[in-house]
């Protein structure tokens, strides 16, 4: 494997024009840059779910746990618990994190566990060939809802903010420099970092024209202000057209979950002595 480029020799099977290429490029660039600044590459662990996004685990030449649909957060939580010094980056799809694994997403945010979560939010199921997801807009016509969905999208940033995430951002795959800035900020943030990345699906949901027209960069926003973050997050509800802010909505420091489990394991001799002492008391 070629550690210099961080790309494995696995054959890439994303569709031409897929937004995943942008996220891969951004993530790889940030990891390489942080490595040049002293981050040991072997401490990076990538966890992915199942879906087009998840092929990232095959394509990036870093430690990886190619998990199952919806379960990125608990796997990543276990890894961070085992070793709080690892840099755990999660790539998950919108079907993955917002449908199948929503409970885990909410609890990961609630715990403020030190993870960087990048959601490849293309607002459609790609790998299963075109069904609606929790962030598809009301009326979305997919293969399981040919007459259009009758349930509105939810706003994932609003959910994660309410759940206790301490770093919340939104990126867009056609704004590469900003995406890299957001990923770098998320990795540096100690706690639960969450980036909802608007990504087009070249085959089933190419809405780049709308995103190009409506997205704008947050400016003059105070990311330490919960209420301001909430207002900006709610500006667009993922259903009706509205201005779509990109950037960091919220960033505050709080003790992260895994720090409470920083333990040196007992040696067998220490363990045996502990058991003996325990039974003496029983």
């Amino acid at each position, binding site marked *: 494997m070629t550690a210099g480029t961080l790309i494995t020799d696995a054959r890439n099977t994303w569709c031409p024009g897929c937004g995943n290429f942008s996220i891969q490029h951004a993530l790889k660039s940030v990891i390489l840059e942080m490595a040049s600044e002293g981050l040991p590459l072997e401490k990076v662990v990538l966890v992915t779910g199942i879906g087009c996004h998840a092929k990232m685990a095959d394509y990036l030449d*870093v430690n990886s746990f*190619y998990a199952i649909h919806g379960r990125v957060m608990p796997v990543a939580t276990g890894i961070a618990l085992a070793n709080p010094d690892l840099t755990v980056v999660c790539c998950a799809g919108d079907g993955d994190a917002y449908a199948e694994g929503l*409970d885990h997403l909410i609890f990961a945010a609630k715990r403020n566990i030190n993870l960087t979560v990048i959601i490849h939010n293309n607002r459609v199921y790609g790998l299963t060939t075109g069904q609606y997801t929790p962030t598809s807009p009301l009326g979305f016509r997919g293969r399981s809802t040919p007459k259009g969905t009758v349930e509105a999208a939810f706003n994932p940033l609003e959910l994660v903010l309410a759940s206790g995430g301490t770093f919340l951002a939104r990126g867009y795959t056609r704004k590469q420099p900003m995406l890299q800035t957001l990923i770098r900020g998320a990795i540096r943030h100690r706690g639960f970092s969450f980036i909802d990345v608007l990504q087009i699906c070249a085959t089933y949901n190419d809405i780049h024209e709308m995103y190009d027209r409506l997205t704008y960069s947050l400016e003059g926003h105070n990311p330490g202000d919960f209420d301001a973050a909430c207002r900006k997050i709610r500006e667009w509800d993922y259903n009706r057209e509205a201005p779509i802010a990109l950037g960091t909505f919220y960033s505050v420091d709080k003790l992260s979950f895994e720090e409470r489990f920083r333990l040196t394991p007992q040696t067998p001799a220490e*363990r*045996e002595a*502990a058991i003996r002492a325990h*039974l003496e008391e029983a």
Partner: protein
Amino acid sequence: MSEWSVLIGGRAGEGLNKAGMVLCSLLHGQGYHVYLYYDYPSLIRGGHNFSIIRAAQRPVFAHRDRVDFLLALNQETVERHRGRLREGGVLLYDDYSVHTEGGVGLPLERILREVQAPEIARNTGIIAGFSCAAGIPWETLEQVIRREIPRGIESNLAVARGVYAVGSTLRQIPGLPQGRRFPLLTGNEATGLGLLAGGLSSYISYPMTPTSNLLHFLAQHADRYRLKVVHPENEIGVMLMALGAAYGGERVAVGTSGGGFCLMTEGLSLAGMAEIPVVIVLGQRPGPSTGLPTYSCQTELHFAISAGQGEFPRLVVAPANPAQACLWSATALRLAWKYQVPGFVLVDKNVAEGAADFDPAGIPSAAPADAVPWNGKGTYGRYTDTGDGISPWLSPPVPGQTVKVNSYTHDGRGISTEDPVVTARLQEKLLRKGAALAAEVAGLPTVLSTGPADARTVLLTWGSCTDPCIEVAGQYGLRVVQPVVLWPFPADALRAALSGADRVVAVEQNSTAQLARLAAAEGIRVHDRILKYDGRPFSLEDLEARVREVAA
């Protein structure tokens, strides 16, 4: 008479389990081995709870229906259990809440008021009444109260003194020559100690009877063992978190019951494909569905050996009592890590929540991790093919190496593939690993035999039915055969253990004879079945009558 049974009953929420443990402690202090069966409904307050304590001159893990002492804290206890009293048995009751003919009423209400003791001290009062009636010296009682009652020792002692003073010896339980005093442990606690001895560093669990108390035990003692104990959002999260932790280098176990295990099966299959070790303590309780949450059964044998999509090796051990639970939990952890497979400790409510005095000599020595290490040469591949199918283990971070695990069919480096040749080779690697595991397991005492080797009739049983079978078989000269490893199924050892038998009687706590069916798949014939599926354990009288029907 060499053994004694005591039943204490009252309303749920009144500390009956603790009272049972105190009675165990008293009788153990008199030199007896003790066993506690605790029967309680699935609710917090109200309803009927009772414990049966059995004291004998050798270790026991079974109860009798008939009792020598009946301690009633409420009317319902007398009404439900009066018939259990043996001739010459002693009924002691709280004379405030119980109205009955015969027996001895204890003035618990008056004494509680006199010394202004809290309501919970009523239990201590009836225990003091029992101690006096059984001729147990005051000093022994005082010692046990001081050791076992966590709060309000003085007021409890005052109650005990008051009750003890007004009683008299009604049926002497003679003290035996004092042996070593052992700690009283439940099966859950013994399992926890076994896992700890096996090197457990993390325990992850969502509460569910009958393994909740294992979670409580390990959480309570987490600091002592520098153990990471986590209670996540649900059992799906439990299993996946455990796999993440194992990837990161933890030795991790999870605990649940059938319903929770349903949610874990997705992660179990991932463990099989990704070759990540994990130990699952699966405590059986009657289903289907919610069933009888606080009672017992043996219905998950086939579930445990076949759960999860796809075909992958696993280990299933089914201990019969706390001593076996301790030993085999450590073994399950060791083997799961060595072979990078899921390992099950299949217990049931009777094993998990039953208590007995426990000889600490039975705790295996704490051993270091037994995973096959990487030799550090060349480029690491998580799934490098080897002769026995076990790929060297590595947890990140290792400079210059990547550790890639994968739920998809994958090559030696952990990269996804759909190649038919690689796919077949991966499956064969898993099978070889299973064969290697089976070969090592075959060298362990997988099938335990008790009783005359030339007995023609054999009781074939497993788990918590084992000890009752051994006691009953003793009366009829039968042999008892207990496979303690259930997967890889020890067919050869079982055939050897059954050799010479012309009548094999399966004794199981389910309605379809799950072990007998497993044996049949290996061509081992079972002639009769004694099955019980009402959630309650076999009492000795119960089982004896059933054995007499088929074996006499």
